[in-house]
């Protein structure tokens, strides 16, 4: 009897050997359906026809997972008939995570490969969307013909929908979502809200504040200036020279708007001055000695204690975590919130830290993979997410719970609602913004409200902590953007990083780009820490030239020319 069973087992194993992967896939599918069934009968999530579609998504950016019984997720499920389980990048780079998925050959239904999007396209993992787009009015409306064309890959198809930088109706610019020199409001308040325009002034201010106030109110020592340098996030150290010279965030090169030529910002005199300044400040003990060895988590923890006076970072990289933590601890009352400063290398250069208008980053976006069995259902879900009712649910929440409506139809929040919205546990169990699905900023279809609370001028201002309000008032600003001033988007090529981030070592320029990236990770910290800056800089420049940066610049120039030519069509 036993032997028979064993033989049967063996036989099955042998037969199944060839199709092992397939079998595995099927059984997990069945499992997830089972779960769906259970949840469906659980009551509040049952859709009208009782059949809830379940999708999976992976976004190659860091994010927080929400609970499986998240209230708004289930509510959106009722309206759209679908639920999507999102997972995020943890502890890897986007390219590593995507590369691993490709090597495995199995994908979630939705994916945003981030910096690894081109790899997914190369691997044939994505479904062309062009034939579907016309059937879904909200998706169709989402981008203009020109923008859709920009998303086409070299085979002429569209594989992903860029989710961000899309402004509906009138733009409501409040937050500066991008990179800047940030400083705590307490420093500015102490100095009487001075005008700070150059890097030298910025560090002078921090130094004199630190001298007068070496500790926080509770006696913890201040950290005057820290630099996040963890893996791909080393842009906080790396790309400031482009901004200091008054150029916008093309990310990997500077583009001269007059001659339309690319310039390498790593080797400009400004770059040298910037790193030399950091070096001086490092020697003085102003730059946090742990800068180059701290992990992202340690950095966020540091900022959350309110000890750090200033740093360069992208708003999205720190603010969503740190502002909530400061608020929950009441540190905003000590002036620990950050505001951006319009800093350039010399007085009189117009800064372009902030650009108005949406930026269409064509290098990545929401894509549907070949593993998705219900492409039409998936796109219907995306379409539904762009409808106003669902969009309000995603970003505002539930009326009466997360926001109130006044007699003019304007949405607002109470202080308790704001406190809830900054509570991590509450967010995980209640809020569901599907933030890496296409979404709008700007004005709602009702022409009264903003697409999300942070863009609603009144709500935005009321939600600010007192220290930031006072600071804005002192500078005659109403928003973060006003602190910096704003410029028009620079040109049709913008932004160039959407090309360089998808380069791979398959081309000579891509190889150079990868090598440059590798050695900059090592030498930029070295240059800042060196006791003899000049010789360290010289050594760095020598190694840098060895990476053949010209090959990279040539390919960037080629792409720049191509983009300008493509833009001609729409003039």
């Amino acid at each position: 009897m036993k032997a028979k069973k064993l033989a049967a087992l063996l036989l099955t194993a042998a037969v199944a050997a060839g199709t092992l992967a397939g079998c595995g896939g099927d059984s997990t599918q069945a499992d997830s359906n089972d779960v769906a069934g259970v949840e469906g009968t659980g009551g509040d999530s049952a859709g009208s026809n009782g059949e809830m579609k379940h999708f999976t998504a992976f976004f190659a950016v860091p994010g927080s997972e929400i609970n499986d019984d998240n209230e708004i997720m289930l509510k959106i499920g009722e309206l759209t008939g679908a639920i999507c389980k999102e997972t995020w990048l943890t502890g890897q780079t986007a390219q590593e995570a995507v590369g691993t998925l490709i090597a495995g050959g199995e994908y979630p239904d939705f994916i945003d490969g981030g910096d690894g999007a081109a790899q997914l396209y190369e691997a044939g993992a994505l479904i062309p969307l062009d034939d579907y787009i016309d059937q879904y009015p909200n998706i169709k409306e989402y981008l203009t013909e020109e923008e859709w064309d920009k998303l086409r890959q070299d085979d002429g198809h569209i594989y992903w929908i860029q989710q961000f930088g899309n402004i509906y109706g009138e733009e409501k610019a409040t937050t500066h979502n991008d990179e800047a020199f940030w400083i705590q409001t307490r420093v500015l308040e102490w100095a009487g809200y001075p005008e700070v325009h150059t890097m030298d002034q910025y560090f002078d201010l921090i130094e004199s504040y630190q001298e007068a106030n070496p500790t926080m109110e509770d006696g913890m020592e201040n950290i005057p200036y820290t630099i996040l340098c963890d893996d791909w996030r080393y842009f906080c150290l790396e790309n400031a020279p482009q901004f200091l010279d008054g150029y916008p965030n093309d990310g990997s090169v500077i583009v001269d708007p007059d001659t339309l030529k690319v310039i390498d910002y790593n080797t400009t005199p400004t770059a040298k001055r910037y790193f030399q300044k950091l070096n001086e400040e490092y020697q003085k003990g102003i730059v946090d000695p742990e800068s180059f060895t701290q992990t992202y988590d340690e950095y966020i923890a540091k900022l959350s204690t309110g000890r750090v006076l200033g740093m360069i970072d992208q708003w999205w990289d720190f603010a969503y975590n740190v502002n909530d933590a400061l608020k929950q601890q009441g540190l905003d009352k000590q002036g620990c919130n950050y505001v951006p400063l319009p800093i350039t290398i010399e007085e009189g250069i117009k800064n372009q830290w902030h650009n108005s208008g949406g930026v269409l980053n064509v290098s990545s976006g929401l894509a549907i993979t070949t593993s998705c069995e219900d492409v039409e259902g998936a796109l219907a879900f995306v379409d539904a997410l762009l409808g106003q009712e669902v969009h309000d649910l995603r970003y505002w929440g539930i009326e009466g719970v997360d926001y109130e409506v006044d007699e003019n139809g304007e949405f607002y929040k109470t202080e308790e609602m704001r406190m809830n919205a900054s509570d991590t546990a509450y967010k995980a169990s209640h809020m569901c913004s599907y933030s890496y699905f296409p979404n709008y900023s700007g004005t709602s279809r009702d022409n009264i409200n903003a697409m999300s609370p942070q863009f609603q001028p009144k709500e935005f201002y009321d939600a600010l902590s007192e220290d930031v309000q006072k600071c804005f008032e002192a500078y005659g600003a109403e928003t973060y953007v006003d602190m910096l001033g704003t410029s028009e988007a620079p040109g049709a090529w913008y932004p160039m990083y959407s090309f360089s981030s998808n380069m791979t070592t398959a081309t000579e320029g891509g190889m150079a780009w990868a090598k440059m990236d590798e050695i900059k990770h090592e030498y930029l910290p070295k240059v800042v820490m060196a006791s003899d800056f000049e010789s360290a800089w010289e050594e760095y420049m020598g190694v840098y030239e060895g990476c053949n940066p010209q090959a990279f610049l040539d390919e960037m120039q080629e792409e720049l020319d191509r983009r300008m030519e493509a833009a001609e069509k729409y003039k």
Partner: protein
Amino acid sequence: MASMAKRKQKIKEPKIEITWKEIKRQKVLLIWSAAIVLYGIIFYYLPLGGWIMAFQNYRPKDGLFHSQFVGLAKFQQLFSDATFLRVIRNTLSMGVINLVVTFVMAIVFAILLNEIKSNGGKKVVQTISYLPHFLSWIIVTGILHDALSGTGIVNELLLKFGILDQPLNFFAHPKYFWPIVAFANVWKETGWNAIIYLSAITAIDPSLYEAASMDGAGRWSKIRYVTLPGIKPTIIILLLMNVGNVLNAGFEIQYLLGNGLVQSVSQTIDIYVLKWGISQNDFAIGTAAGIFKSLVSIVLIVIANMIAKRSGEERLF
């Protein structure tokens, strides 16, 4: 020692003739071994087919059968890359350091533990010492990061005792990286690795110790002349197996502890494969590096085995 080998041959059972009856008798055993062979084929030999990638300009879209064949070009590219050569050096160095340190520590620890008279104390120490084995590297590196940070306990102690006058950032200096990795390995694995030696020690005939005592041997002499020779076969076999693992110097710990400042000493072959193979979509170069690693491992293990054979010690094959 030659006599020992001969003795072994003598003990060998007489050859059993393969008859249907015999096969029937061993039915269950045969079925199980077939299953294991099948497992080996599916999970160890079939994947070797992927080695073809190393000789192609592999593109996932085209697959193994339609990618362009480029011969040894990828290997050439690999060995002309200064980064790869540095990565080999790092892997070998850390592998050897880890091997020596963890190996010696485990034996010393097992012997010391064996000398503890109180049974209860011994058990407590043993349990505590092998617990770190069950921690994942992410936790161990987290602890290390905290302990060795500027405000961590290590710096605090060094400052208090006046050994340093300002905190030292251990992770900013390439020269500390290998010792930190070695220390982490020792801390995590010593207790666990000692288990096998402890059991080997228990297997030593107590009458040998008694005899040694009669002859006037003290503690040291007993360790030297009874315990160590008693566990020598275990030591040699484990050493042989670990030599083949030298190039598996690690991935997680270096990946998690590394940063830009120390990347010239921290990156191992595995990290190279991830960085230049998987994340650059160049699976060919990753595979080539992997093949190189396997070949070196095989060569190392064969050499070690030969040396063991020459000197008449235990061996693997």
